[in-house]
């Protein structure tokens, strides 16, 4: 099945729109529709499981929130409402960011940023970071093995029993691996001319397609609806 491929520039713009939508959201219902909309985006991008999990988790949070508002009183209520309020504001953006990061190729990102005339000093570190994220998962497998061989349990229970030791066992090798990987990645990129000032091209064609405009129209319409609702309501 053909999955939706959006232009990296569209994705950035969608994140911006999403932040605005979350900010101006007039009610919980709107928040939920926004998350559902992002879920839909995930589905057409070929990320079924991600969409399902994201929306289901958010539904639970919404239920919990309404329950809190109805039943709780006093300090507990204030505390939970404050915490949940924050969660509601960032949830949608976090979910969208997850989709963006997992569907954007590093090269594609760099080329799109070059089109937008973003300075390379800014985009190269972000590209290295994007590339570094998946290596953490590989590192984690090795570190888990190493910990177990030393009789340190890499589980929640182990953490509760000996928090300092567990944290130490994770962050020391992770940090060592990270600094090495970052150096090697940078070297591999500068020796292949990443700093070339010419506007970078890309094997994957970068252009705004109908679907890009469609996605932007959808999210903008949603934002407009929110604003109208606020004014009218």
């Amino acid at each position, binding site marked *: 099945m053909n999955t939706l491929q959006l232009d990296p520039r569209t994705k950035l713009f969608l994140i911006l729109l999403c932040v605005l939508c979350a900010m101006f959201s007039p009610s919980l219902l709107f928040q939920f529709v926004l998350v559902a909309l992002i879920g839909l985006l995930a589905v057409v991008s070929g990320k079924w499981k991600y969409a399902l999990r994201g929306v289901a988790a958010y539904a639970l949070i919404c239920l919990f929130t309404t329950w809190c508002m109805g039943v709780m009183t006093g300090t507990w209520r204030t505390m939970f409402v404050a915490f949940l309020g924050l969660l509601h504001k960032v949830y949608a953006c976090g979910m969208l960011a997850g989709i963006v990061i997992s569907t954007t*190729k*590093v*090269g*594609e990102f*760099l*080329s799109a940023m070059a089109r937008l005339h973003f300075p390379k000093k800014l985009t190269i570190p972000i*590209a290295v970071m994007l*590339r570094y994220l*998946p*290596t953490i998962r*590989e*590192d984690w497998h*090795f*570190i888990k*093995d*190493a910990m*177990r*061989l*030393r*009789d*340190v349990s890499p589980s929640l229970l182990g953490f509760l029993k000996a928090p300092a*030791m567990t944290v*130490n*066992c994770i962050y*020391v*090798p992770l940090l*060592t*691996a990270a600094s*090495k*990987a970052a150096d*090697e*990645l*940078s*070297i*591999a*990129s*500068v*020796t*292949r*001319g*990443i*700093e*070339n*000032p*010419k*506007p*970078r*091209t*890309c*094997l*994957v*064609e970068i252009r705004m397609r109908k679907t890009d405009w469609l996605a932007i129209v959808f999210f903008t319409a949603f934002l407009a609806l929110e604003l109208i609702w606020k004014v009218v309501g």
Partner: protein
Amino acid sequence: MIEFRNVSFSYPNSKDGCLKNINLTIPDGQCVLLCGRSGCGKTTLTRLINGLIPQFFTGEVTGEVLLNGENIFQLPMYRIAEKVGSVFQNPRTQFFNVDTDSEIAFGIENQALPHDELKARVKQTAEELHIQKLLGRNIFALSGGEKQKIAFASVYTMKPEIMLLDEPSSNLDMSAIVELQKHLKLIKSQGKTVIVAEHRLYYLMNVVDRILYLENGSITGDYSPKQFRALNSAKRCTMGLRTVDLCKERPLYFAAPHATPVLELRNVALSYEKKTVLHNISLQAGHGEVIAVVGHNGAGKTTFSRTLCGLHKECFGEYLWNGKTQKPKARMKRSYMVMQDVNYQLFAESVGAECTFGIKQPNIPLAEKTLSELGLAPYRNHHPNTLSGGQKQRLAAATSMVCGKELLLFDEPTSGLDYDSMVRLAALIQKLSGMGKVIFIVTHDYEFVCRTCTRILHFGGGQIQNDLSVTEENLPKIKSIFNVG
């Protein structure tokens, strides 16, 4: 043409890897091997050619390096990158994209070639290097050898005049090394200048035109392949160089008459994510046996090793120690793995503390004794990260000795080690074997196997293909497993 004129360099805060007064001319189209001990300066020399020094690694530089008459120090990195392509040791951290096509195009995308040409070049590269079947794949799912091929292809696509390779074979198995050799011959035939810094020399002997030997930052030997091959092995060993001809290597230890078995596997099958990786494994091993575990990438060596140590749980069949069935937890208590990248398993802030890390009532005298036996006592208060690769391995082995582990597993221990470190590691393994430990070594390194192992366990097709004691009769078969001769 590359010219070094009176070049000296030193890294800040380190004596290793400095260069002293280098004068060197490498004409176009020459294929040069740089060799010498770890820290002799061969990597530094390559960094002066690809511009990483002084632009990425700073330090004190004097003299000048000329590339076709132009001073490299005055060229920006991206201009050097158009002429000099570099391939590095670790395939894991050399790629920037998730899919192979984009990765191969990465360099030429930076050069801003038009879209149609990008496509044509990627296709051409894949054809010339015979890697069409790697196109359109997820890089994270490739083996180390395949990743290295993609790294090579990405640089090749940029069509540089000069190709630099820094220990490219470190993480490759025998068959991947053969393919690397083919690729080197190909670029040489295209008239490119090729410079390889390496510890493993045998696969380069009929590729290179010239061999430079570095010692403490100076070039002290400049040989033709013929002169180099004529060096006798005693001389080569004092120079700290690994073998030039695997065929001449012979096992040092032959299998002793069977010791009483302590470890026994009965009809063990292993699966990974519900798919069977290995089945029908039965074997016995006694105290002091040193067993090489060999096989192609994906043959199940990693799963097998992790199972021995109790780290892998999808395991069916019987695992016995001294005749008693062992649960994964008990196996984990008894065994230790020295990982390929030992950095993952060093946790403490000093070498001394590392030895007793995580032990509730540590035996301090034993830790001290172990450290001095392994030559690590002088570094007691150093941070583990400041040690060399070989020293880190010894430290990891030391921790296993302090914990009293009885089964030891080494995963590709010789990758990136020079001759001296390899010899020291072989001595350590002999010592551990003498203490009665059961030792497994996952390796592709025939030279190292000759120096340590008494038995070869060969995996293939989801099972044990061969289980051979190292004896005179078995030697031809062992050689064929390692592609030697």
